[in-house]
């Protein structure tokens, strides 16, 4: 499986099929695997920068929102101004000096997203980043993600079991089987991200679910 630079690829499949494990392998967290992972270098020859939005926000509870973002930056680029700009873009400026334990789950996820973007990632791994949020909050955060990607494109691997979410955000969907997970289908989404409305997403979804291939029946 490959992802082109700047492409948003969604891994869609039932829980337990190894989606999170795949992200862990790509991020270098999990080394007990067979096969190869290659991440192209940046145009300037430096190794690719990685952003990771975990399933839980995973913020340091004893550091403020601002410090959490600062720490994610490598020392050579650790500038308060970069963090402040990111907090402003994510509408988090008012929360900068709060501790994560003072935040709602939605806000904590927003901070985790800001942390992933502040490093200006080339590759952004997202593991169910909007799960267990109420729908209006999830919708707001998805829209925020789309805006952030417009401002600064990155190659994104999005893990989700939510087909609507995948169709709203991705350029291409990879459909996985239950454990042991295999890619059984590849679905390109033709419509540009900015102009997909609810109706378009719903149409794509019912089209997928009506296909005769058994792979798609698992999604319903």
């Amino acid at each position, binding site marked *: 499986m490959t992802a082109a630079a700047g492409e948003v690829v969604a891994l869609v499949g039932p829980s337990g099929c190894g989606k999170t494990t795949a992200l*862990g392998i790509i*991020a*270098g*967290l999990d080394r007990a695997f067979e096969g190869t992972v290659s991440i192209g270098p940046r145009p300037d020859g430096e190794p690719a920068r*990685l952003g*990771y939005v*975990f399933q*839980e926000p*995973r913020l*340091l*509870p*004893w*550091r403020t929102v601002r410090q959490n973002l600062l*720490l*994610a930056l*490598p*020392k050579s680029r650790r500038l308060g101004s970069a963090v402040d700009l990111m907090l402003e873009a994510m509408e988090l400026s008012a929360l900068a000096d709060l*501790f994560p*334990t*003072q935040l709602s789950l939605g806000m904590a996820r927003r901070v985790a997203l800001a*942390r992933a973007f502040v*490093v200006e990632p080339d590759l952004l791994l997202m593991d169910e980043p909007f799960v267990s949020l109420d729908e209006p909050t999830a919708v707001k955060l998805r829209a925020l993600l789309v805006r952030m990607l417009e401002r600064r494109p990155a190659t994104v691997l999005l893990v989700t079991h939510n087909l609507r979410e995948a169709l709203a955000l991705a350029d291409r969907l990879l459909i996985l089987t239950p454990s042991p997970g295999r890619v059984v289908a590849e679905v390109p989404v033709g419509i540009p991200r900015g102009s997909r409305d609810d109706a378009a997403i719903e149409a794509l979804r019912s089209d997928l679910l009506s296909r005769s291939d058994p792979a798609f029946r698992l999604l319903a």
Partner: protein
Amino acid sequence: MRLHATSRWVMPVLSILLLLAVWQSATLAIGGRLLPGPATVAAALLREAETGALFHHLGITLLRVLGAFTIAMSVGVALGVPMGRSALLDRLFGPWLVFFLNLPALVVIVLAYVWFGLTEAAAVGAVAVNKIPNTMVLVRAGARSVDEGLMEMARVYRLSPFERLRHVLLPQLTPTIAAAARSGLALIWKIVLVVELLGRSDGVGFQINLLFQTFDVAGILAYTVAFVAIVQLLEYGLLQPVERHCQRWRRIAAET
């Protein structure tokens, strides 16, 4: 039932008064020679304070306690964290830890004096060696139970080893380290007295040995009370404020 602000002060004072009353009745029952009463001990305390001996010996003992405490805590944390984080190191050095944990304090002290002479370094080092395994065991347990999710986050965002220690590991170990420090302070000052008794010519332990030879129980109790008071001051004046500072994020979260 919630205690009022005043009873927070009243209760400890009452507790101390009660202890003094029990002490005084015990003195009346046993006799003042074997167990001098609070007034006699206070007089002995004043006498030792006037000659300056009290402050000299207390001071030197306190310096040894702080020296041994600093060494024991830093070495214990520095060795305990890697053992808690690496299964290999734990399996390799775990048996050593059990060995040192069960080494009697007296053996360490005597061997230190035999090998390194009756020196200050041998004395303080021997006390530290007695506390290090205890700190290591506590810190190792703390390091084993850290949040692995945060450790993964630190790896993904490429925090340096020092940053991981400072921002990810140590904040999680604060309660463990505070517990080790608290029990450590009490343990260390007890062992320092033994070290002084066996091989130093000053300090509270040396002084208690002298008072023992003249059966001056009032003097022995005077030094004991004075040093316990100092350790209490350290607990309330140093350990607790530092711990509160390290845990302020919890308090802020609880208040909102």
